[in-house]
C-alpha cells in the first residue's frame, strides 16, 4: 500500500515585499512575469530537478495534497505552473481526489492563468486579500486594491474554481473595529468556501518592526481583542465552521493540506527554504538562493541519477537532528490542539504506542482545572477560552528534557 504524502512547492518571488512579511521571498518587480528573466528560469529548472530527485522513492507514496505557495506563485508566467505540475505528475502518483492549491495575490491573476490552473487539475485557490480598505493595504505595502481583489475573485470563479480561500488580517495599523467588520462583511458577500483570518504579528527584522509611527498606530489591546472575537462570531454565524485557530471553512472545505501539517502527516517541501517532514525527519532547504540554484543546476549536469542528486541536495539542507519521540509527541499535541476537533487519546496511542494520559495526564488535568481544556471521552480539545490564550496551554505540552 502506498503511503499518503503531501507536497509543498515554494515560489519565493513577489512583485513587492509587504512590510510585515518575514517569509522567504524576494522582490521581483512589476515586470517579473513579463520578462523571460534568467533567475525565474533557473529557479524553475532547479525546482523541477529537485522534484525529480525523488523519483527513486516516489513509488512508495500516493500524493494526497499539493500546495503551491510563496511568495506569489501567480507572479510566474503562463506555462510555468504547467511545467511544475507536469514534473510533479511525472514523478509522483496523485490521488484522483487530491487537493491541489495555489496561492495568488490580486493584481497578478488573469483569466489566462486561472484557466491554465484549472487545466492542470489545480482545484483550490487562495487569495491574499488582507483588507478591503485601500489605506490599510497601502500601509502594509500591498500592491492591490479591493477592486483588483474582486476582479481576481471573479476570474477564479469564472475559470471554474469551486474552492476559494480568502486571507484576511486583523490588528493592522490604524485599523478600527469598524473597518475590520467592513472587511469581513465584504468578504462574506463573495461567499468564499474558506477564510483564513490572521492577526498581524510584528516580526523582528521586518520594515514594520522598525516603523515607529505604524507600530504606534497598532490597535489597542481591547480593540484588537474585539476584532478577534468578532471574527469568530460573524464567520460562524455566516455558516463557516472554525476548524483551526485561524481557519474557517464551509462544511467539507477545510484545507486538507494544512490538516496534514497539524496532524504530523508527511510532506515534502520543494524550492528555496521549503520545509519537509519526511520519513521521520524534519529538514528544510537552504535559504540562500544562489547556493540553491548552483547546487541543483550544477548537480543536475553532473549527476543524472536521482539518488545522487538527492544526496547532493541533502548537503544544503538544514536538518533538524533532534526529532525523537518526545519531540514528535510535543508537536502532535501543540499542532493537534490548534484544531477544534482536538486530539484523540486513541489516535495518540496508535501513533506513539504510549497512552496520552501517561505522558500528558498532569498537564491535561491542570488545564481542565484552569478551564482551558476539555476532555470529552478521550478527545482532548481547547475550550473557547483556551483558544484565546492557546499559547499558555500549548507551551505546557513541551516536555522537560
Amino acid at each position, binding site marked *: 500500500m502506498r503511503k499518503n504524502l503531501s507536497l509543498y512547492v515554494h515560489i519565493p518571488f513577489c512583485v513587492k515585499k509587504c512590510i510585515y512579511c518575514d517569509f522567504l521571498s524576494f522582490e521581483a518587480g512589476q515586470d517579473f512575469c513579463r520578462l523571460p528573466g534568467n533567475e525565474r528560469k533557473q529557479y524553475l529548472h532547479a525546482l523541477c530537478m529537485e522534484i525529480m530527485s525523488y523519483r527513486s522513492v516516489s513509488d512508495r507514496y500516493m500524493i494526497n495534497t499539493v500546495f503551491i505557495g510563496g511568495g506569489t506563485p501567480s507572479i510566474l508566467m503562463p506555462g510555468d505552473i504547467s511545467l511544475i505540475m507536469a514534473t510533479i505528475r511525472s514523478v509522483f502518483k496523485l490521488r484522483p481526489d487530491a487537493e491541489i492549491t495555489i496561492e495568488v495575490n490580486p493584481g497578478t491573476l488573469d483569466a489566462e492563468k486561472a484557466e491554465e490552473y484549472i487545466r492542470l487539475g489545480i482545484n483550490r485557490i487562495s487569495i491574499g486579500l488582507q483588507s478591503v480598505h485601500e489605506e490599510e493595504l497601502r500601509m502594509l505595502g500591498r500592491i492591490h486594491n479591493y477592486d483588483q481583489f474582486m476582479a481576481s475573485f471573479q476570474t477564479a470563479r469564472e475559470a471554474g474554481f469551486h474552492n476559494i480561500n480568502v486571507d484576511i488580517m486583523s490588528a493592522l495599523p490604524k485599523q478600527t473595529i469598524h473597518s475590520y467588520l467592513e472587511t469581513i462583511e465584504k468578504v462574506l458577500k463573495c461567499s468564499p468556501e474558506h477564510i483564513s483570518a490572521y492577526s498581524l504579528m510584528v516580526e523582528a527584522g521586518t520594515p514594520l518592526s522598525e516603523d515607529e509611527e505604524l507600530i504606534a498606530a497598532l490597535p489597542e489591546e481591547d480593540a484588537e481583542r474585539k476584532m478577534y472575537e468578532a471574527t469568530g462570531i460573524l464567520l460562524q454565524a455566516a455558516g463557516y465552521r472554525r476548524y483551526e485557530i485561524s481557519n474557517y471553512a464551509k462544511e467539507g472545505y477545510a484545507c486538507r493540506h494544512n490538516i496534514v501539517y497539524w496532524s504530523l502527516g508527511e510532506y515534502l517541501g520543494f524550492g528555496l527554504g521549503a520545509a519537509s517532514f519526511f520519513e521521520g525527519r524534519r529538514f*528544510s532547504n537552504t535559504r540562500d538562493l544562489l547556493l540553491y540554484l548552483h547546487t541543483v543546476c550544477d548537480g543536475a549536469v553532473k549527476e543524472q541519477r536521482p539518488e545522487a542528486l538527492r544526496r547532493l541536495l541533502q548537503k544544503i539542507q538544514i536538518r533538524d537532528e533532534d526529532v525523537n519521540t518526545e519531540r514528535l509527541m510535543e*508537536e502532535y499535541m501543540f499542532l493537534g490542539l490548534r484544531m477544534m476537533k482536538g486530539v484523540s487519546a486513541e489516535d495518540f496511542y496508535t501513533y506513539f504506542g504510549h497512552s496520552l494520559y501517561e505522558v500528558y495526564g498532569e498537564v491535561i488535568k491542570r488545564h481542565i482545572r484552569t478551564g482551558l481544556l476539555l476532555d470529552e471521552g478521550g478527545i482532548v480539545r481547547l475550550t473557547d477560552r483556551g483558544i484565546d490564550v492557546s499559547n499558555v496551554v500549548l507551551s505546557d505540552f513541551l516536555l522537560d528534557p
Partner: protein
Amino acid sequence: MAHLDQKRIRNFCIIAHIDHGKSTLADRIIEKTGLLTRREMQDQVLDNMDLERERGITIKAQSVRIVYTAKNGEEYIFNLIDTPGHVDFNYEVSRSLAACEGAVLVVDAAQGIEAQTLANVYLAIDHNLEVMPVINKIDLPSADPDRVVNEIEDVIGIEAMDAPRISAKNGINIEEVLEQIVEKIPAPSGDADAPLKALIFDSLYDSYKGVIIFCRIFDGYVKKGTNIRMLATGATAEVVETGTFGAGRFVPCEELSAGMVGYITASLKNVKDTTVGDTVTDADRPCAEALPGYKKAQPMVFCGMYPSDGARYPDLRDALEKLQLNDAALSFEPETSVALGFGFRCGFLGLLHLEIVQERLEREFNLDLVTTAPGVVYRVHTTDGAVIELTNPSNLPDPSSIDYMEEPFVSAEIMVVTDYVGAIMQLCQERRGIYKSMEYMEATRALLKYDLPLNEIIYDFFDALKSRSRGYASFDYEMKGYVRSELVKLDILINREEVDALSFILHKDTAYERGRKMCEKLKGEIPRHLFEIPIQAAIGNKVIARETIKAMRKDVLAKCYGGDITRKRKLLEKQKEGKKRMRQIGNVEIPQKAFMSVLKLDEE
C-alpha cells in the same frame, strides 16, 4: 645586620576631592621617577581593576614603590599609597593614611576646596600627617590659584603660599612636587631593632600565593621564615615571601624593616585572618601593644542576593567566598526566601560597595542575580527588654512584642553653591533630615549640616543631590548612632500572598507614597495571568495601596507558518523558557526583573 636607612624613605598618600586629579598626579609621579617609560604607562597605572577604570574611582587601596633621585643627588624611596576615593570606604582610607607620614593634598585650581577635600584633610590631620598642598589644573581657563591658596590657608589653616602649582594632566611642575615630598614629608622614625610592629592597610587574595598582606612596618623587621601573628584575629603563619610594590607587580625582597611599605605572603588562606587595621608582629618576639585605630569593618547596608537560576546557589556561594578573600568588608550569610528560594543576606559598607560587588558577581562569575531592596540595620527593642539587630525585614518580630524601634542616623555635611542651598535643604527635609547648621565658607559656598536617617540616603540620595544642585554639591557623612523612630514594615501582597522578598522597613510617613509606587511599578512588571491579580501594599493588616492586573484575554498565535513547524516550536519554547525564569508565588508567576524594578522607584 644593616637595615634600610629610613632617612631615604618617604611614605605618603595623595588625597583629593573626586575629579581633582589624584590618579593623574599619581601617574605623573610614577612617570617622572623614571621607573616606567611613557609607552609602558597605562593611562592610570594605579587603578588596575577594570571596574575602577570604568567608574573612574579607586576601590581598593593600592600602592607603588618608586625611586627618585633628588636635586641634592640622593636617591629616595617613595611609597605612594593610594586611597579609595569614596565615602563608603572611609575606614580603608583611614588605614591607608595611618601607613603614611604625609599626604599630598590635590586641590583643583578652579573649583577650590570641596566637601570631600575637607573630610580627607581632617582625616589626614587626625592621623598626624604632614599635609602638603598642591594646586592642580592651573592651565584651565577658569583656574584661580591665588584664590585657592587663600582658601586653603583660611579654611584648612595650613601654609599654602609655596604649594606647587601644577598641571598633572600636562606634566607641568611635577618636579617641584617631588622635591617638596623630599623636603616636607618627614622620614619614618621607627626602631628597626624593636619587636616587629606592622600595620595591615590592605590585603589581597591570590590563588597561587594565598593572602598577600599589604603592610607598613613601624618597628622591627620581617623576612622569610619569620613566624608572624595578627594581634586582633590571633592568626599565625610563617612568612613565605616579603617584597615591595613595583608598578603593577610584586617585587620580592630580602626583608621589610622599619619605615618600609611592602607585602608579606604567609600561606594564609583566608583574608579574614588579615583584616585591615590589624597589627602584625613576630610571634616569637611580640610587640607590647597593637597599633591604635583597629576597627572591624562594619557593614551598613544589607540586601538579599539570589541566583536567578536556583541551581546556581552553590556557584553564588563560591563567588561570594572568593570576593570576600579580597574584601573583608563584605559579609554574607545564607537566607531563604519563599519567593526567591536560597540566597544570601549580604552586608556592605554602602550602596556603592553593594553595586560593585553585584557587578563583579555578574561580570567575573557570570552570575545572574536577583537582589532585594537594600536596607540598613534596625534595632528592635522587644517588650521583654531584648534588642534585636534586624538586617532582614522578614525577621521582624510580631508587632505586639515590639516595644520600639531605632534606626541608624548619619551626620551629613553638604557643601553647596549658595544658589542651590534652598533646593538641597528641601531635599534633606524630604528625606527626614534634621537641620543642624549652615556655615558660609565664602561668599558663594555654604556648608550644610544635617542629621539624616541612613535608610533615606542609601538609595538615590547622591543622584538627587547632583540633580538638584546641577552637580554643585558634594556630600560626606559619618555614622552618628541610633535614633528612636516610627518605623513600620511594608508588605507587598500579590494575589493575597505576602511576597517576603519585597517587604521592607521604612518610616511610617513615607509608607503610603512608597507603597503606592511599588504597586504601580509591579503592575507594569508582572505579565497578565489567566486570572485577575490584586497587588496590595499593607502595613500589618491594613492595606494602604492597591492595583489590579487584569486577566489575560488573548495570547494566541494566529499566524500562518505553513509547514515550518520549527518556528512554531521556537515560539512556544520561548514562552516556556520565560515561564521558567519566573518566580512562583502562589499561582502567580513573577518575572525576576519585577523584584529589581522596585529598587528604582524614584527614577521617573
